[in-house]
């Protein structure tokens, strides 16, 4: 499934990095701690978080994640938008709280690596 297909299915909007919407989503991860994500998220994962700063984008790029979902309708910080656009890392927004967002992704068939 691509990031675009997930965004369409769950009504998520793309805040930045739209040129990467054709990335393939191969797993999912949820955390608000960068160190935790750096240690455990897999290549191709879609990451659900409430953090909105530019290091979220940097960590997503470092790990070659497929996309980031910003839960709870939070806005992205400006420097994060620029970095995501420049590197084509999709930053999706959902009004759903993180727990619900993960549940909907799971229903669509996205699984974590356990």
């Amino acid at each position, binding site marked *: 499934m691509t990031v675009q297909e997930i965004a369409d299915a769950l009504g998520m909007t793309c805040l930045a990095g739209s040129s990467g919407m054709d990335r393939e989503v191969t797993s999912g991860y949820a955390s608000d*701690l*960068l*160190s935790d994500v*750096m240690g455990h998220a897999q290549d191709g994962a879609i990451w659900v978080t409430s*953090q*909105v*700063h*530019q*290091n979220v984008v*940097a960590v997503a*790029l*470092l790990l070659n994640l497929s996309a980031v979902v910003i839960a709870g309708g939070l806005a992205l*910080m400006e420097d994060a938008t620029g970095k995501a656009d420049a*590197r084509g890392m999709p930053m999706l927004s959902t009004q759903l709280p993180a727990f619900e967002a993960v549940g909907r992704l799971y229903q669509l068939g996205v699984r974590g690596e356990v």
Partner: protein
Amino acid sequence: MLRAWAADLHVHTFLSPCASRDMSPGAIVRRCREVGLDIVAIADHNTAGNVARAMAEATSGPTTGPVVVPGMEVCTSEELHVVTLLPDLPRAAQWDAAVRGALAPGENVPGIFGEQWVQDASTGAISSDTGLLAAPTRLSLADVVSQVTALGGACIPSHVDRAAFSILGQLGFIPEGLNIAGLEISRAIGRKEALLRLPQIAGYGLISSSDAHSLGEIGLGCALLWIEEPTVAEIMLALRGALGRRVEIE
């Protein structure tokens, strides 16, 4: 004798991956002179690697000053930022070594995080630091406070009014009994507004700093320190409002 020192206690050099390329220790020192700062603390992310060069730049040549306070902005395992100030260069080096041993594994990727330039104190030669300085360290807030305190230094949690990487953003509160010297408010907010918005910070000594990542930002946040001499011990007294010392901010 007490007198007022204009201080900016949070400035990054080009060793911080997110800082601008023009933030060499020499350029920072010259900019501090232009804007009339008497004291500057060099506080790069998870390293004190450019402190010695900044001190050399400020003490050599026909014009001297400002006083350079050795510092570092540490990212704790809770992923909150703390400005740490050390009494002198040897203790800054000790602190630097401790933090270096607790950095996240892996190497910096300049294309993603930014370049990390370190400048040799005596020769001025510039090289690249390959450590992953942008990532959180393995040191908890409690670890940082106890180790810095043991070195005679001061801990000042950074930009408490901001959501990202701040003690209030990450923890939601300030742990009781935490041995911090004070709290930093960002230059986006004044003292009164900060106290209105964040009632938890009442009772702590507050300082305003620039958190400059580029030359033009230096001094945009600053404080007047009424102290006897420009030392970390005196800065700690001023933050506590002890022995007549005090901090004036807008």
